[in-house]
Each structure stands twice: as structure tokens, then as C-alpha cells.
């Protein structure tokens, strides 16, 4: 286990330069460059804010940051799962050339997504500071726990998705369908209280993504640290996915090459 991690660390220049190359080639010929990645969540937020502020008479100044935080986190997790499906095919040339720890390929995908996520997060913070001032600063250090947890979760999800997708190539399609369903079951565009009021509290309480959302959203938007239960649920889910990913990796390290 430690030798595996130190192997990953030894190759850090390799996967870091691949991440940089991915980002660069994706935005090479576009004028606003990496800003494109912000366009989707920001545009979604603008549209939904306009609609919902009319429909539910929601307060735009608190709803917009709430929504943006939710969409950013959701986009990060889905891109880990969906792009993660392709990660081993993307690294096929290297896997066939040289033995490497396989976990670096999902890591490459997730790091790319994390760059976009962090960019969005800084836009969100500026937005909150403009609307509500700096009252959330005391709660922000809790992100130092939440963000690494989210990152490890996404890395493990991408690993599982990638490995299953090598075996069964319809995984990506099924993942997209499944995520679409989860999107509506998770309090992303509506507040979790709406589910709680209607005796659907279990949908929130046992949803690891809802817990992750709480960990990020509450300190940023409401200037308070998420309840311990959210951390517990998120940590439990992360542990479960990490164990799953490690078990799959242990099986795949010897065999993946025959399926590529």
C-alpha cells in the first residue's frame, strides 16, 4: 500500500504534466480559454435564478450562491464519474508501454476536473463576499477537511468507473443515466429542507452527495460549519468507495492490460 502510494508520488511529474497538457490542449484555440469551464455553471445559475426567483419568490442574493455551490460540486463529481470512465483508454498508450501504478490515470482525470472546480469555487467566494460581506471567513477553515475528502471521493469514483468501463463499455452510458436520476433526488437546485418537510428526510440523510454539498455549502453560503453527521456520512461513503476502488485495482493491476 505504501509502496503503491510512493510509486504514484515518484511519477508525480508524469501525471502532473499530463494534466497540464490536457488543460492546455482543451483550451488551446479558444479566446477566453479556461473561462469556458465556468460558463456552464454560471449560465445555469443565472437562468435558474431568474426562473425560481419568480416561481418561488426566492431571494436571489442567497439563492444564487446556494445554487452555484451546488452545481459546482455536482459538476465535479459527475465529471469524475463520466470522464473517469475513459481514463484507462486515455492512458492506454502508456499502460501498454511501461508498467505504472494504474491509479495515476483516474488521478489525471480528477485533477483536471479539480482545477475547473477550484476556479468555480473562487468565483463563488467572490460572489458571496460581494453579496454578504466577509461574515463567512471563520467557517471557511472547515473546507480544509471537506475539500480533500471530496477529492479522494472523486478519485475513487473515477477509478471504479474507469475499471468497470474497461470491462463493460456501456458503463459510461449507464452512469450518465443514473447520475441524471440522482441529480433530481439530491438537493442541488432546491434546498434540503424541502425534502425534510415532506417526510423524505431519508433521501437527504443517507445521500452522501447531499452530505458533501452540506460540507461545502454551509460554510460558504451560510457561514456555519456543517453538522458532524454530514462529515460522518461523507467520510463513510468515501471510505466505502476507496475500499471498492482498492479492491478493483488489486484485481486489475495484473489483468487490465489484456482488456485494453
Amino acid at each position, binding site marked *: 500500500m505504501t509502496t503503491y502510494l510512493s510509486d504514484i508520488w515518484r*511519477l508525480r511529474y*508524469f501525471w502532473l504534466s499530463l494534466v497540464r*497538457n490536457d488543460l492546455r490542449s482543451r483550451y488551446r484555440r479558444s479566446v477566453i480559454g479556461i473561462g469556458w469551464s465556468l460558463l456552464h455553471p454560471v449560465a445555469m445559475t443565472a437562468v435558474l435564478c431568474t426562473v425560481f426567483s419568480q416561481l418561488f419568490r426566492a431571494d436571489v442574493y442567497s439563492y444564487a450562491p446556494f445554487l452555484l455551490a451546488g452545481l459546482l460540486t455536482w459538476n465535479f463529481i459527475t465529471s469524475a464519474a463520466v470522464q473517469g470512465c475513459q481514463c484507462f483508454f486515455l492512458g492506454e498508450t502508456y499502460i501498454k508501454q511501461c508498467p505504472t501504478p494504474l491509479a495515476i490515470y483516474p488521478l489525471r482525470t480528477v485533477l483536471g476536473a479539480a482545477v475547473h472546480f477550484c476556479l468555480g469555487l473562487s468565483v463563488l467566494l467572490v460572489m458571496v463576499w460581494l453579496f454578504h460581506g466577509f461574515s463567512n471567513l471563520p467557517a471557511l477553515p472547515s473546507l480544509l477537511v471537506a475539500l480533500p475528502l471530496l477529492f479522494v471521493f472523486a478519485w475513487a469514483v473515477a477509478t471504479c468507473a474507469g475499471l468497470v468501463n474497461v470491462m*463493460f*463499455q456501456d458503463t459510461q452510458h449507464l452512469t450518465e443515466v443514473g447520475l441524471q436520476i440522482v441529480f433530481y433526488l439530491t438537493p442541488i437546485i432546491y434546498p434540503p429542507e424541502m425534502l425534510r418537510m415532506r417526510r423524505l428526510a431519508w433521501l437527504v440523510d443517507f445521500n452522501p452527495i447531499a452530505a458533501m454539498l452540506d460540507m461545502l455549502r454551509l460554510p460558504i453560503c451560510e457561514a456555519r460549519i456543517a453538522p458532524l453527521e454530514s462529515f460522518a456520512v461523507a467520510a463513510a461513503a468515501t471510505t466505502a468507495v476507496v475500499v471498492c476502488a482498492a479492491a478493483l485495482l488489486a484485481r486489475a493491476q495484473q489483468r487490465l*492490460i489484456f482488456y485494453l
Partner: protein
Amino acid sequence: MTLLELENVGLVFSVRCQGRISLKEYVIRGLLGRAKRNRMEVRALEDINLRLCAGDRLGIIGPNGAGKSTLLKLLAGVYPPTCGQRRVYGRISSLFDITLGFEPDATGWENIAFRSYLQGETPRTVRQRMAAIAEFSELGEFLNMPVRYYSTGMTVRLGFSIATAIEPDILIIDEVLAAGDLAFQAKARQRIQSLISAANAVVLVSHDLASLQALCNRALWMEHGRIRADGPPKQVIDAYVQHTTSSAASGASRQAA
């Protein structure tokens, strides 16, 4: 000094007869209890015993499908052996398919860096090697161009320059030298020879028997996944040529009759 050792190694590919199945298919078959295992086993390598020592320049010959490339990939550690032992006591650098291992949209310079990092280099050591690699490849201005637009020969030059620059203990090359032009082939030959003098080992696969005989001091004849002969290049290559021509002749005479 032994650098690499294979002991009773075998490799079995398990191939699905109907290509890939989907997850939906898999789950439904599992639920209906009709999990048929429609697989075919291919014995790619059997009973391979090989000891590679410092100074060995091993050339591997044999007909198509004899397991030459598979053996190389197993030596490099890309394929894990199904049975038997593989022991390595040195740093391996490999050059298989020339189109493999390049990011098509990145420039030649960037690809030099990626490949070197993959071998475990750091930015500091890479910077020292960059110039030497670029010079050996003779690609000049083309290194600023995305590798996507390189010709086959240019890709080979780049790949070979990188693979040999890290001074590996063991260099493994699969049938790629022929793609470079004459001048580069001569240069590559020289580089291989200088690697030998640094007490390293080289393993080559080639159908170019003349250049194998010139380059190697040991030859391995593979057939049907087994080692048929292992010895001095002249002897092994002569036996291989004789066997091939005689079987071709008998095939032709059978057809004529």
C-alpha cells in the same frame, strides 16, 4: 551479472469469443443464471527460461505469431506472467509500437518531457537530457510542432532517442528500427553498440536478419510460443533460414503435385 531472469514462464491469453459484452447483458445473464463462459484460451508463451546478462545483445527471430512481441512485453513488465517467475535487477526502457506513448497534440519537446517523467525522471534531470535527446533525434525545428504531424520516420527518431537517452540497464526494442532512414539506422546501431560497452543489455525483435546478425551476439528463435533455439546468432539464424526455406519449398512442391 544477471539483469533479467525468466523461469518457467508461461502466458495464457483468455479471449472472449464474441468480443465485449455489456454491463446490461452481464447483469441479465447473471439474473437468469445463464452465465456462459464463452472463452478461448490462447497459449502465447510456454516454458520460457531465459537469463539476460550484462553485455547481451539478444536478437529474437521467428515467424509471425510465434510470441516474439509478447515475450518482449513480458520482459518489459507490461504483461504479467500467468505462471513462472520474472526477476528484474535493472532499469528497463522499452520502445514497442512507435505510435504508442506520444501525446499527439503536444509538441516534440513536451513529449520528450512526458516520456522521461514516465521513466521516473525529475525536471532537473530531464533538462540536462533534453538537449542531448533533441540533438540525437536531429529533428531541429520540428520539435516545436505537435507530434500529430510527424512522419513515421520522425516518430521513430524521437522515440528511439528518448528510449536510449536514459541509459537503461536493459533496452527493449520491437521492430522499429527499420522505419528510420539509412543514416539514422547507422546512428541507432552505433548507439546500441555504445550501450553495450556501458555493460547494458539489449533485446531486439526484427525480421531484418542481416542487421540482427551484425548487431547481436546472441539469438533466440521462437516458434509457437516456445524457445526453439538459443545461441550464437550465425548458427541460430542459419538454422532458422534453412528451416523456413525448406518448409516453404515442401509446401510449394506439395502444391505443385
